[in-house]
Structure formats: structure tokens, C-alpha cells
């Protein structure tokens, strides 16, 4: 149905080679703040004393825990397993002893405790590697997909969608796009990984090329990262199949749909996926992890996390083991509590991140940044003022929506109207809230509305099921009752029949009894009791 919008890879690359880029509507230019953290190499840090590994760190279903408390596990050993295709395992981030399997505050805006495996490292960091697939071109695609799944790889750019599902498209792939844009202010984890590990990213791209067989490969990097661009160009020097493009710095050009629009000029349908127009997009960190899994047999147990913000004395990028509590990372970056009024750590960037509930919250697969602002840096939102209908938000919206209308309807809980204005297409980038002169936390309202809508749909589904069960039960009870009545009727008939068969015998008896009673009564009337009887 969407085939007419299918892009033509050759045409797209020809345009890119001529230096032709497109643009998406809206977008903002917040201060970059990347130089805080991107000047030093990625730091390999000491293991934390304890790791909290949530068993679900991706979009999909969680696996079943396959370890027990007290068990010794090796680095990279799977802690969960499942045959569900929407499930990816989590792994022991280092070797050590399982101390507990309990609820622990989650790396989620709510901080609601989630099932988490507590691991105490033994300091050995003893790997358990999967067999290497060095000669992966001779291996079937399905084996590689299985490996990517078993290594626990999910999209490391932010959404956490299982990579093995994405890499098995049912449609032809015109363009494989590697996303090194990293447009959100402060964050520099992708920047550093591109500068330092461009070779391994290239290896990951080659593996993806073998799996999804795209016609063309495009790597996109924002033009504020010239060193990363150079490193990738060097790594891909001898590969004619890869086009490396620098895109102008603008937020949120790293959004999947926005980047596709910049590169191809085509829009992904708001209810569709990039593959509908022949694109497939991976984050550079994901490519790195794929190469690790296939060529080195290593499961996804660590990721680059940017530690930044004015309240940190040594902002930097680190290789953080998944499950590292953020307190450990704050220590490493020399967190200065005197610079904050209350302790506030933002997981993610300043536009799309959320405040962590406390500092035992662990780093998970989608944690790309910890932002610890000082008191002037990101002041708390003051009370919102009334919307003055200035329309700046509509100009800033990269998805071409009408944030004002969405705001009115979300606030009034008129969710059907909000949906009519395509609330679902909102990518929650925060550009509208950034430009709002009345400081209305617009994205709050959208997120609230979205979760409410989801909740209502869930309730509806549940009540539908309850109705069905109620009606089935009523029908069953009715059938039971009818069966019982039928049985009683048959029994009564049978009794009557036997009575009839015995002839008038029974009737005579009744008649005789009646006659006796009558005679007795008559006798009593004829001789009324007198006082003398006493």
C-alpha cells in the first residue's frame, strides 16, 4: 500500500553525493554543551561494589530468570531466557555471586520497583564467551539473528527495541541508515564511540549488510562532530558501498523519522515504520555491540554513558557495566553536592530525559547520559502561565503537529480530539516546551494523555473480557437451571405414573383418611368439652 512512497536508494545516494540534503519542518537550536564531556577518551572504570540488573530492559516481554540466589555467574552469562520472540535476555555484567532477586527502583520516570537481579562482582571479570562467528559471511542469516538476540542487543539509541526483530524485515531494504547524529544537547556517548571505535562500528555495519542486504548504506553524523566524521571516513575509506554524510546541527535531527526525511526527502507515514518506505536505521552504538556479539562472542554487558553537567567536577564518558548504580558513576565524575539545592540526576538528556528517583537506580541498555545540572543550569520549571496562542510551538514541532491543540485537548482530557490531532505521532522531543514562552510543560501533558489513553484501552479490553465471562456464566447457570427443572419434571412425571399404575389404591387411602378426619370432627362437635371433663 505504501510502495509508491518507497525510496530509490541509488537516487538518494546520488543526491547525497551532490551535497543535496532535505530538511524537516520545525526543530530548535538549544545550546550544545557537548564540549563539557566530549574532550576526553571513554574512561574504563572500576567495577561498582554491587550491580542491579533489571530483567526487562527493552520493549517487549521479559524472560524467565534462570539463575538462583547464591549462584556464581560468569561475565556475559545469561540471567534470563525465553522462547518468546519479543524477549531478549539480560546478562551478568561481570563475574560474581547473585546476592538477591528482588524488586528494585527502576530506571523509569516512575521509579516503580521492578524485578531486579543483584550481583556482587568477585573482581575477576571472568568472561563466558559465546562461540565466535568470525567468518560470518558463511553463516546463515538466521544464525546471526539468533546470536544478536542471545547477546541481548536492543537499540542503544533510546527506544530499546530488540535488534533481532528489526533486522528481519519482510520487505526489501533500500537504505540501511546508520545514525550517528546524536542531536540532544550534552550527550556525547555516540560521538566518543565513533571517534574511538570507528573500525568496530564498520565491522558491525558489515554484519548488518550481510543480514539485511541493503542496496545502499548511509552513515549520518551531525556537523558538530567533525572528528567522529573523519574517523568513520577513514574506517570506510575502501568501501564504496557506504556513503558518509554530515547533516546540519539541529534538534531533533537524530529522530528516526526526521533523519530519514533529511536524507531522502520522504516522510515515513505517521502510523508506519521506516521499513514501509524501504529504510532501516541503527544507532552507531548498536553496530558496535553487534560486532562485539558476532566477532568477539561478547554479550551486551556494558555501554558508553555520558556523565555531564556543571555539578560534576570531571564530566566524561565512561564504559558503564549494565546495572551500575548511578551513585557509583557520580563518585567517578566527582559529584559536588554543594552545587545543587536538592540532589537531582537526569537520566537521558535535557530535552527527553527524566529525573531518577534516587541514586541506586541502575544504568540500563537505553541509558545514554546522566546529566547532573547545577542550580543555575537547568532551573526547575516555575508555574506555567496561560497559553498566549503565540504559535511558536507549532513552528518548532518536527512532526508537523499542532502542539497547542494537543495541549488544550490533553489538558481537558478530550482524548478522542487529541487523537484526532495525531497525538500518537508526537515523538516527545520537547521542542515545543523548549520554545514555549509561558513555560508550559507541554510534553508532560502529552505523556499524561498518552498513558491515559493506553490505560483506557486496557480497561476497555478488560471489561470486554469480563462481560464475555459474565455472559458465559449466566448462560451456563441458565442451562444448569433448565436441566435441573427438566430433571424434576421428569421425576415428577415418573412419580405420577407409578401412582397411576398402582390404581386407585392411593386415592382410596386419602379418601379414607379424609373421611376419618371428618368423622372425628363431627364427633367433637356433638360432644363439646364441658367443665366436668376436667
Amino acid at each position: 500500500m505504501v510502495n509508491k512512497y518507497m525510496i530509490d536508494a541509488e537516487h538518494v545516494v546520488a543526491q547525497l553525493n551532490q551535497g543535496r540534503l532535505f530538511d524537516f519542518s520545525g526543530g530548535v537550536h538549544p545550546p550544545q554543551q557537548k564540549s563539557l564531556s566530549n574532550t576526553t577518551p571513554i574512561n574504563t572504570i572500576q567495577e561498582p561494589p554491587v550491580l542491579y540488573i533489571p530483567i526487562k530492559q527493552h520493549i517487549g516481554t521479559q524472560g524467565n530468570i534462570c539463575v538462583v540466589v547464591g549462584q556464581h555467574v560468569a561475565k556475559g552469562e545469561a540471567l534470563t531466557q525465553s522462547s518468546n520472540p519479543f524477549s531478549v535476555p539480560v546478562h551478568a555484567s561481570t563475574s560474581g555471586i547473585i546476592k538477591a532477586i528482588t524488586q528494585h527502583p527502576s530506571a523509569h520516570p516512575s521509579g516503580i520497583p521492578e524485578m531486579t537481579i543483584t550481583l556482587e562482582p568477585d573482581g575477576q571479570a571472568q568472561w563466558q564467551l559465546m562461540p565466535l562467528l568470525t567468518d560470518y559471511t558463511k553463516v546463515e542469516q538466521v544464525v546471526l539473528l539468533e546470536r544478536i538476540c542471545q547477546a541481548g542487543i536492543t537499540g542503544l539509541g533510546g527506544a530499546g527495541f530488540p535488534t533481532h526483530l528489526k533486522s528481519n524485515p519482510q520487505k526489501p531494504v533500500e537504505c540501511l541508515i546508520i545514525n550517528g547524529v546524536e542531536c540532544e544537547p550534552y550527550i556525547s556517548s555516540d560521538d566518543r564511540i565513533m571517534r574511538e571505535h570507528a573500525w568496530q562500528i564498520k565491522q558491525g555495519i558489515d554484519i548488518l549488510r550481510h543480514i539485511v542486504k541493503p542496496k545502499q548504506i548511509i552513515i549520518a553524523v551531525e556537523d558538530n562532530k567533525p572528528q567522529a566524521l573523519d574517523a568513520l571516513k577513514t574506517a570506510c575509506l575502501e568501501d564504496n558501498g557506504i556513503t558518509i554524510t554530515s547533516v546540519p546541527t539541529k534538534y531533533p535531527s537524530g529522530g528516526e523519522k526526521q533523519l530519514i526525511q533529511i536524507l531522502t526527502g520522504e516522510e515515513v507515514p505517521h502510523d508506519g515504520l521506516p521499513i514501509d518506505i524501504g529504510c532501516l536505521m541503527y544507532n552507531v552504538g548498536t553496530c558496535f555491540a553487534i560486532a562485539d556479539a558476532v566477532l568477539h562472542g561478547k554479550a551486551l554487558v556494558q555501554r558508553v554513558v555520558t556523565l555531564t553537567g556543571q555539578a560534576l567536577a570531571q564530566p566524561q564518558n565512561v564504559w558503564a557495566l549494565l546495572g551500575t548504580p548511578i551513585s557509583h558513576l557520580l563518585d567517578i565524575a566527582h559529584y559536588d553536592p554543594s552545587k545543587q539545592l536538592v540532589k537531582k540526576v537526569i537520566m537521558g538528556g535535557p530535552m527527553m530525559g527524566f529525573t531518577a528517583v534516587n541514586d541506586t537506580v541502575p544504568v540500563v541498555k537505553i541509558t545514554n547520559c546522566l546529566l547532573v545540572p547545577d542550580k543555575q543550569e537547568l532551573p526547575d520549571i516555575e508555574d506555567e502561565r496561560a497559553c498566549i496562542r503565540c504559535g511558536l510551538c507549532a513552528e518548532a514541532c518536527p512532526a508537523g503537529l499542532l502542539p497547542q491543540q494537543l495541549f488544550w485537548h490533553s489538558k481537558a482530557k478530550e482524548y478522542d480530539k487529541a487523537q484526532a490531532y495525531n497525538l500518537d505521532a508526537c515523538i516527545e522531543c520537547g521542542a515545543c516546551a523548549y520554545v514555549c514562552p509561558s513555560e508550559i510543560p507541554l510534553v508532560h501533558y502529552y505523556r499524561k494523555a498518552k498513558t491515559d489513553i493506553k490505560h483506557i484501552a486496557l480497561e476497555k479490553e478488560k471489561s470486554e473480557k469480563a462481560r464475555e465471562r459474565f455472559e458465559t456464566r449466566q448462560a451456563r447457570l441458565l442451562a444448569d437451571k433448565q436441566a435441573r427443572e427438566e430433571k424434576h419434571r421428569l421425576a415428577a412425571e415418573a412419580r405420577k405414573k407409578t401412582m397411576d399404575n398402582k390404581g386407585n389404591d392411593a386415592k382410596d387411602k386419602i379418601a379414607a383418611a379424609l373421611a376419618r378426619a371428618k368423622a372425628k370432627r363431627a364427633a367433637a362437635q356433638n360432644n363439646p368439652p364441658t367443665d366436668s371433663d376436667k
Partner: protein
Amino acid sequence: MTLLTALLIIGTLALIFGAILGYSAIKFKVEADPLVEQIDALLPQTQCGQCGYPGCKPYAQAIANGDEINKCPPGGDATIKKLADLMGVEPKPLDGNHGVEDVKKVAYIREAECIGCTKCIQACPVDAIIGASKQMHTVIIDECTGCDLCVAPCPVDCIDMVPVKPTPQTWQWELGKGVGDIPIKQVL
């Protein structure tokens, strides 16, 4: 003569239209009262009977026949508003005689204390309790509507109504509570 022609024509027309109407009455017969179905779709289907009717469908029937729309505590104000929209009447506050709006709960059987009397199983309107005579019973949490009807019949009082805890998947953003606040605004 003119009169006769007119009568004939009108009579013929009447016959034709009558036939069409009669045919469509059979062909397009509506089985149930669509209004009852619509009302029933808005009710929360807890089947709790707090409205005074034995289930949501009977209450839907009663509303269609003119009963008040504010007798459903599990549905609360949201349901009353939707019913008011559907029925074209003014929304009213929930009738306190039928109960108050509460957080969502599910039944939980303290299994060690259960004597296996099956009374709760008979009371459950949606068959969400499993067990057999002199065997322990338990609640299928996913099916439980939180109607409370199993609590009273239990002779050993081993059923609790436990509030449903939100998970990160079902959690709803609260505005202005400071929980999970997004920074968004950047002033430099």
C-alpha cells in the same frame, strides 16, 4: 369516475408501500435494543451489583428504561459523564447510597486459611476463582474485576481486596507531582 381512479391509485400505492415496509420490518429486524448495548458498553463490567441490579447488563436495561445514571461506583465520574453524553442528560455526581469511587482492587485469598467451601466460587460473577470442594481456592487476578462479591460469603473471612499496584508499564504520569519530572526547559 375521477374519484374512483384516485382511490384506486392511492390504494395501489398504499399496498406497495405497505408491502415494502412489511418486507423491511422482517428483513432489517433489529434483534436487541441497540441503546442497551451502547449503555452496556460504557459500563465497567465489574458485575458488582452496587447499582442494585444483578450485573451491568441489567443496569444498562434499567437506564434505558429511565433509571438514574449515577449509580455505578466502579465507573465513577468518567462513566457518568459518558452515560450523560449518550443519554442526552446532565451529568450528576455519584449517588453515595450505592458506594464511593475507589482505587482498583482485586481479590486475594489467604490460601492457608481457605477451607474449600466453594461459596466464593458461586458468588463470583465472572468465574475468576478456581478450586473445588474441600480444595484450596485461588483468584485468577487477570480475570478478577474487583467486585467485592466474594468477600461476604466467605465463612472464614480469608479474602482480602488488595489495591492493584501500578507497574512501569501501567503507570500513569501525574502532573505537577514532581515524580519523573522532565527538565525540558533550558535557560543559559
